[in-house]
């Protein structure tokens, strides 16, 4: 395969409070076997050689599981390839001469730290409200004591596969975090271990989600479309049912 010459339009913002703007860069001779982030590495190496500040973007595992990276590429969270996080996107998805725009996740709940790096601490604060079972270390009984049907176990896993990258928020016109929160709620709803705290969990997590300034879900479905792990929007329906049941049962005023 031949190599690519590309034009990049990248969001640069020096600090959280400073104004940002799109800047244009050209990169040449990009191998189609490179990953998208390796292409940005190449750009940064050149910028440093020219005495310019490199473009800051966050990443860690570079194999699509830690959920650290996340860029809006040509207007789409994580770019053009379905079921693929930014770090696993490879340059063979692009054509010679392409113009590529690169922006950070945009949501009120995710302030920009620098350039393409954002702060997703809001997700941790939601998890702190109920993304677990309340069992202390050492209290567990034998792992095979409660059989769990394969179908339920598989459903729980499908929801638990969420990597917390927040592409769902970035893609949503309302910047809603419903897909993320519902995936956690669903994981435990499918497992007997999650049942004792079922009501409490959904009520508290949803309350925190609202407090963080995320928008409401209005069923656009963009979240599911960009999710690198294929988390299903049906989890949001499940979360709504769980929430209604919990609110009715506990008499929570927040319905």
């Amino acid at each position: 395969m031949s190599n690519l010459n590309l034009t990049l339009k990248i969001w640069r913002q020096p600090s959280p409070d400073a104004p940002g703007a799109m800047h244009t860069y050209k990169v040449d001779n990009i191998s189609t076997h490179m990953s998208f982030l390796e292409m940005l590495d190449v750009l940064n190496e050149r910028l440093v050689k020219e005495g310019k500040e490199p473009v800051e973007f966050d990443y860690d595992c570079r194999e699509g599981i830690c959920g650290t990276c996340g860029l809006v590429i040509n207007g789409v969270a994580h770019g053009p390839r379905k079921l693929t996080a930014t770090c696993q996107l490879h340059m063979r998805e692009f054509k010679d001469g392409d113009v590529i725009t690169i922006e950070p996740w945009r949501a009120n709940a995710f302030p920009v730290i620098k350039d393409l790096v954002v702060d997703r601490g809001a997700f941790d604060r939601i998890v702190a409200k109920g993304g677990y079972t309340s069992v202390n270390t050492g209290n567990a009984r034998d792992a095979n004591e409660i059989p769990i049907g394969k179908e339920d176990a598989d459903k729980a896993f499908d929801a638990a596969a969420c990597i917390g990258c927040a592409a769902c928020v970035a893609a949503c016109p309302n910047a809603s975090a419903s897909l993320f929160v519902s995936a956690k709620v669903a994981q435990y709803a499918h497992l007997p271990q999650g049942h004792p705290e079922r009501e409490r969990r959904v009520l508290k997590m949803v309350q925190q989600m609202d407090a963080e300034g995320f928008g409401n879900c209005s069923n656009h479905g963009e979240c599911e479309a960009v999710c690198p792990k294929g988390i299903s929007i049906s989890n949001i329906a499940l979360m709504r049912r769980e929430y209604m049941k919990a609110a009715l049962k506990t008499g929570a005023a927040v319905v």
Partner: protein
Amino acid sequence: MSNATPNKWNIKMGADLKNSIPEGPLDKKWDNYKSGIGVVNPANKRKYTVLVIGTGLAGASAAASLAELGYNVKAFCTQDSPRRAHSIAAQGGINAAKNYQNDGDSIWRLFYDTIKGGDYRAREANVHRLAQVSVNIIDQCVAQGVPFARDYGGLLSNRSFGGALVSRTFYARGQTGQQLLLGAYGAMMRQVDLGKVQVYTHREMLDLVKIDGHAKGVIIRNLRTGEIESYAGDAVLLCTGGYGNVYFLSTNAMNSNVTAAWRCHKRGAYFANPCFTQIHPTCIPVSGDYQSKLTLMSESLRNDGRVWVPKTKEMAQKIQRGEIGPNDLAEEDRDYFLERRYPTFGNLVPRDVASRNAKYVCNEGRGVGKTGLAVYLDFAESIKRLGRKAVEDRYGNLFEMYERITGENPYEVPMRIFPAVHYTMGGLWVDYNLMTTIPGLYALGEANFSDHGANRLGASALMQGLADGYFVAPYTVGDYLAGQKPVNPADTSHEAFKEARDGVDKQIKRLLSIKGSKTVLELHRELGLKMWDYVGMSRTAEGLQKVLKEIPALRETFWNDLNLMGSDMEWNRSLEFAGRLADFLDLGELMALDALNREESCGGHFREEYQTADGEALRQDDAFAYVAAWEYTGEPGAPVLHKEHLQFENVKLTQRSYK
């Protein structure tokens, strides 16, 4: 050290180390220990603050468990969320001696496999404790709602991993590390909500603060703002992972590093067996010089995939030139070299053995792919036997990952794989209590050296990280705290804090002021290549002596010709990486020295001078059945060697055989 007399490599020798292993028969040691330790009165626990550095499996599980007991915990990580620690990337599974498959597994067998797999360079008592608590780990994780794979009857399923003849590996599709970490992270976040844990994200520990010889605080850089922060505590737990990135290319996450451990080493913590590194046999081969990391294909694939290369060099060359493909080769033209050489274990030999054999066939010119640096991992037979659906169920996400990266479909064309740096068995030296040579400083998980000897078996790192964090440290740290007067966590006015802070600040300013011509990435790549060539899959005295001259020269270049942009008081990734590379340069030198000193082959450490007639590792038990623990002397390259002699009272040392 006084009385230090240099050995033939001019290495100074220090006093032997004591490991505080409890008395009694092997299977009673841990219980005896637990009934004899000091315990802090519940009302007093809240007066103590424990600083946990790192929130991977080891750190998150320790933070949660200590907080549940009543201690105050502050937990730090470099990522923007604790859930993103490198443990998240573990794919294949976690071992436990549950014997749910009724195939004869037991605590003893897991203990024995681990000691043997580590080529008899691990401490018996630690490994036995690990096997004992392994069963509790699975119970704990299931109670947390970790969605392990299950059979239709609703019970947990298992798979096999290398180096074992029983099926004892629990898994959650190809994302076991993710699910275990989310369980531990959840447990820790619950304690955040209860006010017992404070989590500090985007924070990097850059120094340890010692007061009267004890670890009493840390110096941290806030990666978002660049500010230097001080934290005081009663004990420090390093749960900062492994140092595989000293090779630049590895399967580790890009932020994995040795900095926290190395700076503690400089403060007096001995570094043990640094040359024991693991090269994993099944990774996606390098595709070009822009490569930033290597991707692992889980070892579990060797359950159903068969490893082969063409029988002849001529056929391999045709494949390398793209004239024919693997599917054009008839069965009799293929060499299933692992099955041929090791009929008992076949494709499931331990990692070091599988990696070395892949290297041999490539050296013979029989490698495949454009570069000739790859072998095939072929699923055709399994797909025929089990059906595509069953194979997809087991490995679907791994196959997808492979396709995304290489553009090839492994259901139709065999995968191309090659060994890559994956795990580091070496780490800070710890005693039975997981305490380093600095009182109050503990090392847990991959950051310590303790359980895997010279080679780690697959699915044992997750087990060890969680064992250390959930079940070991909560007891041993409590025993230490019971003898300490609590510090005031708000008070960091002691001179030792100031001294450490100034040192950190000075180094950062120095790095930014060099203004040379080389980037961090360039220099790191250069170090990585040297490490791979001379301290990689096989080593020689000649090569090691050569690299021991080259690394200091590269360090000179680093400190004189590095170019960093930006400032210290902002987010600055290159600055972070420069600090880490400075430590990798020192560590790399120590690894080479350790490899030179260890004149034997064992596990992942293969010295070409020491091999059997058919190319297997040849240990020298009389001279080297010891842990090499290195003391920093102020000058990298001139450390003092302390030995911990390994006593094998329960297993007999034999030449490992997987034939």
